[in-house]
């Protein structure tokens, strides 16, 4: 047992560190550190810098332009990115769809889409959940039926919680192409151009007052049959394989470490009984408790990683990482809000979007903290709710 990185990995770590120090734009760093809302241009800008370096798609095989990193190197990259508050690349194209196209797509599909994904020239969104298909995703009802010519699917239905759907040029969607006895069977994986007539994107404002997610309505939307990935009925298999990708990053340990650092910084500045809040035993104990959770999570994450590095396939551990990871993240958002006391109250949409332009009300970090606490409730709901993750563990690990 050895926790230390190998000399090669240490060298790699330094290389990553140096790159981030030179290339990661300071204004983006400030935005992420302050929790200011990120917009499309921010993501595209950073992803293009990464693409130029050849590091935008750590998970891609070398033949498709990936950097050929080992699991440990990928982890190091993620860790270093977290330490400098780097923007997280948008997963839909790079992390989720691309591996699907590599595994299930046709040569034409790869040719057509992978380059634009790599260069962030096309923005993808995900069309999975529906108003009546959340935790029970397989009950989705959006229909795709071939027209008379046989050259197009006609798609009707609605998708919900479509993250950044208002930015998207394309959507990868799960649609029902036939009614089968087993509901998973009739699902297909379809690529839909968001500019096709019949598509409307309605914003959903979340509890923090921000617009990130959408409901997408599809009415007689014509999609060429060549946009089917794999064969009809293969959608569920594809969706499951997609969820297997990049599982070890789900825990977001580096981000949480950075948030604890932020929490300590704020608690050092805030006063209570004439002393820094961080010297208050009760508050200190609460920070320690979440640090212990995070410590355990990091080590669990590394154990999974070590298994991966020795060639094992990841199993239901990813469910554990998701549940514990989101719990830690949520605890930290609560503590951040508590740290600023009464200054959690003032709310300004303007500040959420553009940071303080004039004198801050109370601590300048405070304005986003309560909205983030409320918004971060979503993390135990999305990506398979934590209840669903526990069902998976009960079944797959404990055999219940």
């Amino acid at each position, binding site marked *: 047992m050895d926790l230390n990185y190998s000399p090669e990995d240490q060298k790699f770590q330094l290389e990553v560190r140096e790159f981030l120090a030179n290339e990661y734009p300071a204004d983006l760093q400030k935005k992420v550190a302050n929790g200011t809302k990120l917009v499309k241009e921010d993501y595209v800008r950073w992803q293009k810098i990464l693409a130029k370096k050849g590091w935008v798609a750590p998970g891609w095989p070398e033949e498709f332009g990936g950097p050929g990193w080992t699991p440990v190197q990928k982890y190091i990259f993620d860790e270093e990115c977290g330490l400098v508050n780097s923007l997280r690349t948008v997963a839909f194209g790079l992390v989720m769809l691309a591996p699907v196209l590599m595994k299930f797509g046709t040569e034409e599909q790869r040719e057509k889409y992978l380059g634009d994904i790599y260069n962030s020239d096309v923005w993808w969104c995900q069309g999975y959940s529906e108003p009546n298909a959340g935790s029970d995703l397989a009950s989705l009802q959006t229909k795709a039926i071939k027209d008379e010519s046989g050259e197009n699917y006609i798609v009707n239905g609605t998708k919900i919680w479509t993250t950044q759907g208002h930015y998207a040029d394309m959507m990868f969607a799960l649609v029902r192409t036939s009614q089968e006895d087993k509901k998973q069977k009739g699902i297909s994986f379809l690529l839909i151009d968001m500019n096709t007539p019949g598509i409307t994107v309605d914003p959903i404002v979340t509890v923090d007052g921000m617009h990130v997610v959408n409901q997408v309505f599809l009415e007689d939307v014509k999609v060429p049959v060549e946009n089917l990935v794999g064969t009809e009925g293969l959608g569920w298999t594809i969706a499951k394989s997609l969820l297997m990708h990049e599982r070890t990053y789900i825990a977001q340990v580096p981000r949480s470490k950075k948030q604890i650092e932020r929490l300590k910084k704020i608690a050092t500045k805030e006063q*209570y009984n004439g002393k820094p809040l961080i010297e208050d035993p009760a508050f200190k104990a609460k920070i320690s408790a979440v640090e212990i959770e995070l410590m355990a999570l990091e080590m669990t994450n590394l154990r999974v990683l070590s298994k991966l590095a020795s060639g094992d396939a990841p199993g239901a551990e990813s469910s554990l990482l998701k549940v514990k990871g989101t719990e830690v993240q949520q605890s930290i958002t609560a503590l951040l809000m508590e740290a600023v*006391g*009464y200054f959690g109250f003032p709310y300004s949409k303007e500040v959420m979007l553009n940071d303080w332009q004039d004198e801050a009300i109370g601590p300048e970090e405070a304005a986003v903290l309560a909205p983030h606490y409320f918004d971060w409730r979503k993390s135990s709901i999305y990506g398979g709710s934590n209840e669903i993750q*526990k069902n998976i563990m009960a079944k797959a690990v404990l055999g219940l």
Partner: protein
Amino acid sequence: MNLEFTEEMVMLQDSLNKFLQNEYDFETRQKSSRNGIGYSEENWQNFAEMGLLGVPFEDEFGGFGFGQTGLIVVMEAIGKGLVLEPYLSSVVLGGQLIQRAGTQAQKEDILPKLIGGELKLAFAYVERQARYNLSDVQFKAESKGEQFVLNGNKSVVFNAETADKIIVSARTSGESISNEGISLFVVDKDTAGLSLRNYETVDGLRASEVRFDNVTVSADALVGTLNEALPVIEYIIDSASAATCSEGVGVVNQLREKTVEYLKTRKQFETTIGNFQVLQHRVVDMFMTEEQMRSLSYLAAIKVAADDNVDERTKSVSAAKVYLGDARAICGEQAAQLHGGIGVTDELDVAHYVKRLAMINTLFGDRDFHLQRFSQV
């Protein structure tokens, strides 16, 4: 022993609940919240007509004389309806401060108008460095002949922008953190040197940063005894904390009802999700918490009303406040979780109940503060 409300209180409760049911649907509430002042002046006048604004005040000023236990009835309803009107600021804090510490002249001047809906108060007590410590007061009032000159800043003063008078706590002697040397002043909001920076709050209310720049008031602006205001402030903050716990009971009641309703109607995996035991237990936890909170809110109100034992009052109020803090996770976070994605959207009322519940944990000291305070008695 009798833990029931009087007939008069029940009547008041019924008429308030009816008003809120008919006139205070969620959409109307949201519109009021965004109308610039953060509530409806028309509703405020309705409250005055119903006698609501006089609930805790003595008959001689036109009040109902129900005291703290009367506030239970009003505040639970306020919680249920997510009411925005400045009841806590003007009646519970402002009016009660005047009633408890004011001179006869101040009471006669202020309370009848307040009860009649013609005048509103706000209480400015939060300071940037103080967190929840009420004896940490740097805001200064200096006596100058027959007058006082007030200088300093107060933060997160709820409903200051619509108040006619602001009551402010100030240091008139002693170190910045000490029990002695704090005094209260009631100041007309249009007094020269007083300026406000107004904003909305996360839970849909309005508050202000208030700045006093050489604000000069006459000696009759002093509320209560010079240098000895802390016990008064502590009593009124306890009263407001107990009232807030009752509001929390109303909030949690609605979160529980709405979540149970959702579990009964939402279908996934070919069944209503209320059939899943793991979810049933969560709403049962919400139910048990609601009942325990209600019990502690009654106890706190009784002890505040009795007003004969500071230790007992402190313990019961802090206990209720600790429970309110626990409810943030057990009732608020769970309600959002059990609703799924829709539970974190702005359009659904549930998210706004979740917000209010979390934010009133902060008001008058959060869970940790009150746990510590309880343990120190």
